[in-house]
């Protein structure tokens, strides 16, 4: 065993301290094994903290008619039927229990008149289903889980980035990373690893995602031989801020529309009447995003290239109580009082439906000992995620992955950690320092964002996607020649140079998958293939590493059992 690096021996290593990672850690701990959580930021700052609108669970507190079947049907419809039906079923069935559990750990949701958890309407959900705390639901969730985990005694390794998964033969035996603060390397020996690293939005220019969302987990798993699935399905949230430039992309929660917000173009027309007269503003995100985009492209956009979103017809006090952070966000950052006038909004890259392909029940990937949950995992959302289905995804499948990983680790023995592999991981981290000069990681990142924004955006076509692949190849090649200045101590340029590798990998995977799917479905819109084809609805794309190249496969969507088919057939 190497003594060169700080080494921690754990049973289960959880990469990521968002909702999924924390929930997994709590469940793994309950299996009586030693659990460690690593995260790139401080504890409690993970992306989940930003979730606003709420958490979908068919608790039927407000609309008595709701039940898991309806939630299941909504999720499958929203996902355009390429979801993993088993995940959609488990998710709909278990979400209410997970919510109650949060409450028992101290979470305080908004209440109904008779003291139950209040639920609000959201796009694509038949009933009022989103449990929420004003517009800061994610904060409530992450704080609750964090406190629970701390009280149970997990070890947290904050501001530590994992750069490689280590295998013993076929199975996982640990991970290698660095402390952001000191730049020193660290090795974790673990029997099982759960990836809960969240999304990939940072590859796009306009995004609601934080710097952490660089697709690390997907890239690490891919490098370790796991399969990625549904990578073509990138959700653009219809309402991000468009002005001022500094906040471009910042999310305007769907709760604004849930609470009655209306979309208009510059001529004052309520354009959703054209695109989805039935559900209007509360249509699914893919539809609303494309509608706004189309309005703007056809010259009916607002001065800063978006649409108007107006909630000012609601009483000012109500708006401030129900949407306090939106109120402040616009007031302080854009000088707009949303209780008096409309906001300007436009699509922003928001969520990754695809990710690591996992088993529905356990979250296990194709690599033994490697599990995944949350945004980093694929399957539940299919071609398009419904708002609120992510937070519930985190707790439902976070728990399942933690449970399975804990049980797996309780039985397994530690694998060995290969010195040569660690040395190689170290070398690749230090290379950029050793080059006397070279490419600037910040510049490559900006260029990558341009490529993905322009060529792999909301609307795609073959020519753009092919060009994107060529451009990505060039960027990859430039990334081989990166140079970073300064020391290893808290050096964001250096950190970015590593994250960039992951972004390039996932961007390439997205582009390949998008090129392969010759139809439009959910969040994936091809101008050259505008129709949704039944034949394509029976296929998912899987991406694996073959040698050094990326290979794309088609796999059949699993056939639904009859009882679930029955549910889908019911009209609601």
């Amino acid at each position, binding site marked *: 065993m190497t003594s060169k690096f700080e080494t921690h021996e754990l049973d289960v290593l959880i990469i990521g301290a968002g909702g999924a990672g924390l929930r997994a850690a709590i469940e793994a701990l309950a299996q009586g094994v030693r659990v460690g959580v690593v995260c790139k*930021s*401080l*504890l*409690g*700052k993970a992306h989940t*903290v*930003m979730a606003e609108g709420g958490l979908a669970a068919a608790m039927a507190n407000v609309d008595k008619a709701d039940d898991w079947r309806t939630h299941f049907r909504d999720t499958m419809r929203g996902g355009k039927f390429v979801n993993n039906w088993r995940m959609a079923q488990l998710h709909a069935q278990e979400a209410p229990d997970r919510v*109650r559990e949060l*409450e*028992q*750990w*101290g979470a*305080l949701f*908004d*209440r109904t008149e*008779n*003291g*139950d958890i209040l639920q609000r309407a959201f796009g694509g959900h038949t009933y009022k289903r989103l449990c929420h*705390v*004003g517009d*800061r639901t994610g*904060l*409530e969730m992450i*704080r609750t889980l964090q*406190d*629970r985990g*701390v*009280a149970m005694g997990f070890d*947290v390794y*904050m501001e530590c980035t994992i750069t490689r998964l280590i295998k013993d033969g076929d199975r996982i035996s640990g991970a290698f990373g660095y402390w952001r*603060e000191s730049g020193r390397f660290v090795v974790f020996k673990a029997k099982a690893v759960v990836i809960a690293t969240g999304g990939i939005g940072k590859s796009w220019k306009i995004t609601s995602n*934080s*710097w*952490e969302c660089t697709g690390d987990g997907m890239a690490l798993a891919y490098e370790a031989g796991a399969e990625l699935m549904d990578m073509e399905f990138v959700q653009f949230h219809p309402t991000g801020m468009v*002005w*001022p*430039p*500094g*906040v471009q992309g*910042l999310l305007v929660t769907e709760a604004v529309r849930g609470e009655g917000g209306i979309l208009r173009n510059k001529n004052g027309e309520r354009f959703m009447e054209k695109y989805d007269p039935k559900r209007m503003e509360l249509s699914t995100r893919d539809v609303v995003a494309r509608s706004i985009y189309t309005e703007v492209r056809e010259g009916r956009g607002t001065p800063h290239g978006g649409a108007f979103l107006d909630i000012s017809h609601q009483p000012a006090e109500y708006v401030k109580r129900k949407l306090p*952070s939106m109120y*402040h*966000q616009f007031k*302080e*950052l*854009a*000088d707009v009082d949303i209780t008096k006038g409309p906001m300007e909004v436009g699509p922003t890259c928001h969520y990754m439906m695809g990710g690591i392909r996992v088993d529905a029940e356990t979250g296990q990937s194709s690599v033994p000992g490697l599990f995944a949950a949350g945004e980093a995992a694929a399957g539940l959302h299919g071609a398009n995620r419904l708002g609120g289905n992510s937070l519930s995804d985190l707790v439902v499948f976070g728990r399942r992955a933690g449970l399975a990983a804990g049980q797996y680790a309780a039985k397994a023995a530690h694998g060995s950690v290969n010195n040569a592999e660690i040395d190689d991981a170290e070398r690749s981290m230090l290379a950029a320092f050793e080059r006397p000069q070279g490419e*600037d*990681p*910040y510049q490559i990142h*900006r260029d990558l964002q341009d490529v993905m924004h322009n060529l792999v955006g909301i609307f795609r076509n073959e020519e753009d996607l092919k060009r994107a692949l060529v451009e990505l190849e060039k960027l990859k090649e430039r990334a081989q020649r990166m140079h*970073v*200045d*300064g020391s290893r*101590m*808290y*050096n*964001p*340029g*250096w950190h970015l140079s590593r994250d960039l590798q992951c972004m390039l990998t996932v961007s390439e995977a997205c582009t390949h998958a998008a090129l392969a799917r010759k139809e439009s479905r959910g969040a994936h819109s091809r101008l050259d293939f505008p129709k949704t084809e039944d034949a394509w609805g029976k296929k998912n794309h899987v991406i694996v590493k073959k040698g050094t190249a990326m290979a794309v496969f088609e796999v059949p969507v699993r056939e639904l059992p009859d009882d679930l088919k029955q549910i889908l057939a019911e009209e609601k």
Partner: protein
Amino acid sequence: MAEVTLRIFRGDQKGGQHVDYKVPLVPGMVVLDAVHSVQGHQAPDLAVRWNCKAGKCGSCSAEVNGKPRLMCKTRMDALPTDRPIIVSPMKSFPLIKDLATDVSWNYKVNKMIPPFQPRPGVEWKMDQRDVDRVQEFRKCIECFLCQDVCHVLREHGKMDEFGGPRFFVRSASLEMHPLDGASRTRLLREKLGIGYCNITKCCTEVCPEEIHITDNAIIPLKERVVDQFYDPLTMLVRKIRGASTP
């Protein structure tokens, strides 16, 4: 295009100084944008924490012209841009590098506070009236600006005896939780040193979430501590009640 000078602290435990950077001014720019612009074009190794850029995660705490603030919520056009804008790390915590400080002490204090413990046999029903008060405290984004500004920590360095406003807010959120059954008053008095707070309200002034830290958390907690430890009447009443209910 208009330019503005940012005077950013650069350095680590070994020492450092403020360095001037010129940044093009963009409409609606916040200090964090300006710092990022420096990082992306002039000083790639400039250490700064951030996540959400929307005042939701509490990562980007620093001191702008001497005032503890979230950089992502501090508009450049609200500052005098004819002079250099001074950006420094929080001063109550040990410096790591540039604008990043070591806030790990806060996580240690947090561990001392007993978590939520539901009273036995509670029904999981809660009234919005009861929840309202606690929800204010739960808005805390752990930016630690209140800890930074609190003179008990900043000037008197009482890290060992004093928990700081953030953890009074947290204690209040648990103590006033309608279904919680644990008591933290002894902890507040003895370990978290609530008596060191002289309610001078700087914490409330800097809180970006506009939590009324002193009026709604600290003072009510002080009153609860008085109930338990200083008020002979309530102490007597408790004695009598305690004796009659075995």
